[in-house]
């Protein structure tokens, strides 16, 4: 089965945009998540990342990333609550723990953990949308003039990972199909077999690269300018989000603190930054082409002629 995070080409704005524009847009959302700790802004960034993914058709990638991201967020909350005993509102005193000492669970530590977890979840969803919507071949082609060998190594790895995943699935099936009288397949022999198979595959792929002329010391190929009509939209929205985030910082939108007590500000600057960031999630929206009145008239007259004939 194809991975939910695998790139799926579609003629939609985010997939059509040049890698630079798509990376700038998704990067701006992640940047906001790392610039701010305010839960409102973080939720807005999460909404933007989810909306961008859904509008780009990456439903499965978003759902899986959300599941993984929220599980990670929960883990961060639990670890932070157990490790950090700062904060005025003690919810539970769990006594002395080995290594951790006195463990007091505070509301402030839980909220701080939730903020960090939310940040990680936003980054994961944005990464999932990138993986499912940005063509890795175009990214690598854009990188090739800067680091040719590294880009090719990345190409090889990106090809071998799904092949190894398919090999692993086949080996698991074969293990299930062994007769009850055959030796059980332990994890170690299976892993050895998978590794040996992957090495064989790598040799085959390397042979293919040789045949494609990889070892040639040819003049470096120039590439077409990789542009799309959506690039301006994504660059503009990325710039607007980053500008709003920086301006918001300057105007005190980051009015959030957890220790010693929780203080969350919902001032106009915070609300404005959150609104701009959340709305940026609509950037991959597809617009249906509008028909101008003159072309509509021309089409109607053509229809009329056809009808007369």
């Amino acid at each position, binding site marked *: *089965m194809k991975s939910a995070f695998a*790139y799926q080409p579609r003629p939609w704005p985010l997939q059509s945009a040049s890698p630079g524009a798509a990376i700038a847009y998704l990067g701006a959302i992640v940047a906001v998540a790392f610039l701010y700790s305010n839960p409102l802004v973080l939720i807005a960034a999460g909404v933007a990342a989810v909306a961008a993914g859904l509008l780009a058709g990456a439903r499965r990638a978003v759902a899986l990333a959300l599941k993984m991201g929220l599980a990670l967020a929960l883990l961060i909350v639990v670890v932070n609550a157990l490790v950090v005993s700062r904060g005025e509102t003690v919810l539970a005193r769990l006594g002395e723990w080995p290594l951790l000492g006195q463990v007091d669970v505070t509301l402030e530590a839980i909220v701080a953990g939730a903020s960090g977890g939310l940040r990680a979840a936003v980054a994961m969803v944005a990464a999932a949308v990138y993986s499912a919507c940005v063509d890795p071949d175009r990214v690598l082609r854009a990188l090739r003039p800067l680091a040719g060998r590294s880009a090719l190594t990345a190409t090889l790895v990106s090809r071998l990972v799904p092949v190894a995943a398919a090999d692993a699935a*086949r080996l698991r099936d074969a293990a299930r*199909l062994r007769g009850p*009288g*055959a030796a059980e397949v332990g994890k170690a022999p299976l892993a050895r077999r998978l590794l040996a198979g992957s090495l064989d595959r790598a040799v085959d792929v390397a042979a293919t690269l040789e045949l494609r*002329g990889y*070892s040639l010391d*040819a003049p470096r190929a120039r590439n077409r300018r990789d542009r799309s009509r959506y690039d301006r939209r994504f660059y503009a929205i990325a710039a607007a989000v980053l500008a709003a985030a920086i301006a918001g910082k300057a105007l005190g939108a980051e009015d959030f603190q957890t220790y010693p007590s929780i203080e969350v500000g919902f001032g106009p600057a915070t609300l404005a930054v959150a609104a701009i960031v959340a709305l940026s999630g609509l950037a991959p929206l597809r617009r249906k082409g509008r028909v101008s009145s003159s072309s509509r008239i021309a089409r109607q007259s053509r229809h009329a002629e056809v009808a007369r004939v």
Partner: protein
Amino acid sequence: MSELAIRRGAAPALAVEGLGYAYPHAPVAALRDVSLEVAPGEFVLLAGRSASGKSTLLKAACGLVPHFHGGEIEGEVRVADLDAIAAGPGELAAAVGYLAQDPETQVVSTTVAAEIELPLEMRGDEPHDRARAVEEVALALAIPHLLGRTVDTLSGGELQRVALAAALVTRPRLILLDEPTSQLDPVAGDELIWLLRRLNEEWGVAVLLAEHRLERCLAAADRVVAMEAGRVAFDGAPAEFLAWAQTADPALETPAARLFSLAGIEPLPVGVRDARQTLRGMGITHPPNRSSRRVRDPHPSDPALEAKGLWVELDRGDDVRDVLKGIDLTIRPGERVALMGRNGAGKSTLLRTAAGLHEPVAGKIEVGPVALLTQNPGDYLVRERVGDELPGEEGLAALRVVGLEEKIDADPRDLSGGERQRLALAIALAGRTEGEQLPGLVALDEPTRGMDRARKDELVALIGRLAGSVEFLSPGDKKSTRAAVVVATHDVEFASEFADRVALLGDGVVIADGPTAEILSGGWYFATEVARVLDLPGVVTPEQGAAALAEEER
């Protein structure tokens, strides 16, 4: 020689002189004193049994041998006047394209367009030249609709075409193909061969094609080179090759040639059209029309597999699709059934559902113990000693079933391809060969990929033993030890040899189901070569065809 002269075909596309080669640490040489020449624009078929040196010769012609594999080489190989032994595969890439058996490992990019463009980019071609070359090769191979797709969404046939496009995009003078149709259904396989012929004629590209299924491509070839134990055993025209094979190596005869041999008709035909013309010339236009007889169910026992209204859907990541759409199928012990159909018709899914790897979404499937051998027997082999894979009495019994009990101390990697396949089958059978757990169903998924005739004959014999009175399983009760054997295959000639029944699947439904002789003589793609020559209901093998022709003479 100038590039223009080479382009115009002054030099041979391939010239091999006294070539000898041994892989590193190999006890015997893979190639011995091989000399041959392929002229520009020539279509040459490379025939021979497994391990006769065909693949090694192709690898030497594209520079992988010795540059990639190492080993010791002697003699001379020139490709479009380039010294292939001195130049590496990269330098040869502009002059020669290579397509191997498994298309999975021949793609390195994520999207089809990027994959085809890669060799040009490596060569430093300008963007507009690359764009045009990609467009032209996509049009030539009828794949422009695939350019925007990712390679992991393609079928085997589509992937093979994409790999071929990447090999052809540099406009090489010579294209080397190593069993490119072994994973394709008859339709896709025939399409690929005729596509090659068209490219050969229109682009003037020389073709050197290694194949086991000679009946598929002999008619397209200008010349045949037969290899035997690393040497060139024959080099000549297709008709002469058939006359040579008749005495030197009958395993290389095509079914139509065998039909003519058995019927004592000369000359031997290189293809269906040739055979029909010869028969017409002899005044045989319609041999006696033997009506097809429906075989009544010879095994009125409980079914080994019974599927009723079976629906199975598979989630392929980007879409969820019904692969089986209400299959009704009953198979009884002792039956040998060939499951046929295009790639993606649902053959493998049906076998995997029977083995419990997929759950039906509607309908039901009732089946006893199933031993399923999937398409890659190597997946079953995880240990370094045969006896460690199959310990104890049950393991030994399974080895006895497949005739490998003497290899119990061998390393599976040292076994031949056929032996490895039989070992994998023994692993699937182990513990299901005695008492209550006899295999109700033995299922094999595409077991003849890359097999030569001799190995196929061995497999036919093994299937016969499993479906017949398997005395070595339970001498006291022959009837109960008979397994139903179901084989998913694209190989119509193999199906005609082993099966007594053929179920033809199309887009998830059974579109034809009946005796082998009836199903394989009633169509074009899913018909044997003999059936296409004679066009007689019920006549599919050379022996049946010869009998029909003898009846006509009387």
